[in-house]
């Protein structure tokens, strides 16, 4: 057990080292509260980071699956906005009749179904018509954004407060325990699916060598389709948290989320070429990005500088991984 742990760390340790470095950096550089405690390490601060990262974190889980299957999904940011707006519209404008639980349930169900549907559309076009994943999901990214704006008339849909459906919904989905445990729970499930199930094995085989996988008789199209459906559904789930946290459905939100999610996946050691990657890496990558932002914000560092530092981190992380796995020497 112990030796396997070290072996794992040696092969997949890069993101952990990054995480450790940022934790140390954050602790050393952190401002101190008036009572002398380190602000960065306070439970409130750390759980703030987790809550902030839960949206990107959940999307990144599904993105890991898509990328391991040698695909990409650029539409997640738009799907997040669609989901936030659909759920808000359901609760605030369309007002279906019924008890509170039913109203909230319908809103959630419709949002998730919408996300899964767009994922299915992506997956079907990619696997049946063989459009490149980049092109297809770029198209849905644009199209879904337009649809969301049309649906809302390009106006924010504000949620209400108090003991009404939308108030209760916002209270629940924006609460730290709920959002964080949702993310962590999904991460554990995703990890198990990837490492312990037939589906995970098939996905990695297809991502690494689609032709050989097809020649082995694997259901290539179905496996890839499922990854896109999952990605759409989880982006929609992130959209629910987003709506709750911002207390509104904003059709212009979520722009650039796809790139943040991809960055987290890549920092976590998943190869964009497909076949190789881990959920543990992705979660670590998401935390690295979140903690970095946090460290810099605690110091009031200019957010433009923050972006530049992130760029350096992405390049450094991927370069270090290539060195340790020897990928660059394979050609």
């Amino acid at each position: 057990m112990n030796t396997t742990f070290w072996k794992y760390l040696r092969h997949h340790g890069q993101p952990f080292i990054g995480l450790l470095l940022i934790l140390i950096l954050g602790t050393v550089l952190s401002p101190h509260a008036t009572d002398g405690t380190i602000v960065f390490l306070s439970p409130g601060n750390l759980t703030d980071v987790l809550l902030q990262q839960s949206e990107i974190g959940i999307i990144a889980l599904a993105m890991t699956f898509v990328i391991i299957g040698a695909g990409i999904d650029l539409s997640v940011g738009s799907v997040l906005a669609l989901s936030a707006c659909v759920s808000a519209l359901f609760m605030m404008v369309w007002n279906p009749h019924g008890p509170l639980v039913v109203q909230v349930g319908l809103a959630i169900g419709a949002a998730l179904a919408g996300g899964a549907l767009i994922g299915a559309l992506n997956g079907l076009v990619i696997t049946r018509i063989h459009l490149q994943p980049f092109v297809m999901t770029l198209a849905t990214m644009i199209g879904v954004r337009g649809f969301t704006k049309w649906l809302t008339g390009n106006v924010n849909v504000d949620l209400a407060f108090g003991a009404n459906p939308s108030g209760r919904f916002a209270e629940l989905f924006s609460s730290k325990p709920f959002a964080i445990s949702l993310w962590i729970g999904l991460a554990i499930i995703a990890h198990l699916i990837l490492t312990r199930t037939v589906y995970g094995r098939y996905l990695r085989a297809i991502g690494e060598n689609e032709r050989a996988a097809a020649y082995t008789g694997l259901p290539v199209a179905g496996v890839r389709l499922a990854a896109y459906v999952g990605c759409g559904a989880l982006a929609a789930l992130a959209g629910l948290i987003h709506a709750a946290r911002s207390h509104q459905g904003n059709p212009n939100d979520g722009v650039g989320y796809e790139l943040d999610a991809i960055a987290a996946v890549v920092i976590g050691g998943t190869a964009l070429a497909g076949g190789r990657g881990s959920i543990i890496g992705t979660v670590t990558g998401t935390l690295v990005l979140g903690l970095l932002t946090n460290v810099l914000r605690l110091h009031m560092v200019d957010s433009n500088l923050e972006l530049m530092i992130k760029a350096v981190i992405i390049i450094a992380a991927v370069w270090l991984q290539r060195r340790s796995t020897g990928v660059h020497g394979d050609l």
Partner: protein
Amino acid sequence: MLECRNLHKHYGGVIALKGVSWSLRPGEVHALCGENGAGKSTLAKILCGITAASDGEVILDGKPVKWSGPHEARQAGLGIILQELDLFAHLSIAENLALGNDRLEGSAWISPAVLHEKVRPLLQDVGLDLDPSLPLGQLSVSQWQLVAIARVLGLNAKVVFMDEPTSALTNDAVERLFGLIRRLKERGVAIVYVSHKMDEIFRICDRVSVMRDGEMIKTTACAETTIDEVIQQMVGRAVAATRREKISVTEKKLFEAREISTRKLGHVSFKLAPGEILGVAGLVGSGRSEIGRALFGLSPIIEGLMTIEGHAYLPRNPHDAVRHGIALVPEDRQREGLISGMSIGQNTTLASLSTYSRGGWIDREGESAAAAKVLASCRTKFAAQELPVRSLSGGNQQKVLIGKWLLTQPRICFFDDPTRGIDIGAKDDIYRLVSDLAGKGLGVIWVSSELPELLANAHRILVLHEGLCLGILDAATATQEDIMRLATGHRL
């Protein structure tokens, strides 16, 4: 004028040439022939600077030369028309002809009008009446081949290598090519004609050199030899001891193909009995892999019918074929067989994973036990199942792929040249494995480039030529010469 002495070439552990010495006279048409993998293309590529020899020397006009690359060889007047055409589909005919040709490219700026005027005579030479501005992608394969020839002509080459130039040509294009070869010869250009088409060789060549297993067997004047003699020199290997088991002649049919046609096969019919090993012989491109692709749902069947145990069988995709008990060990291990980043064990169980899983969850212990058992029965040598499959030798990788299919408990196995590029010991293991499979009542279809291997192991041998089945021979009485004659398009 062009000569080589004692050339050696090996790719990793695979030896392609062993001590080849050969010479070419000015103005002659010289045929290089041999079976697949005899070393013809390798020799041509070394002489033209495309690959470097491991050892030995190349002499041009009395002076030893060492090419830094194909460009230098081209400057010295050696042009080659490759089998895998090195042209660019997105560029126009004229641009393709000008690429790498200093005379046509002239300066850094190319005026299309001037270039088109310059290339017209070249196109007329090969009988192509086309607008030079057409992108190559719009041309047929045959026209494409003629552009490749025109490109070499544009170099004013002293020596032209043609590697299977007629394989993609229509009949009248072949005639035009032969006319062109005669004209080139009159201009004093020497032509090296790599081919296995005997009738063509005897029509236009002056001398013929036969290669076999990386060695130069003999060079003779065409006038002094016969097709039969050349075929004999090509195959001339000792036939290994027979190992196939006698199959009881039953009327039982496991599989039958009735007049099946695909894009590359025309009306091929054959039957397969349980326990039978049906060998498939044919040159590369004869459609021998296509039989497997049809069987495995990779190539759509245009016409005809396949049956398994009397039931009609029409696979929609490989997934469907596997469910019907078909297994296919592909020709290209790296691209079509292995998931090279995965472990040995995971590659072995990939096709039968659902057997060791419950509700989608993999039973890891059951999985590794099954893999261990089948890998042992295939005599695979490996240190640990967890190691990446790419760490294995070619022979052991092939055993992993065979093991993968054994775990699916197939009824029919298609092996596509399973012993290519692997060492003798591993070959023997694979022969034994295949016979064992047949002994258990499976039907085996076995494509091979090595005729002795088929003669020793198969019960019957189906010979393909350009997508047509020219005969099914009884392996007990057939000879290598018979097969080679059919494979090169001559009836018995």
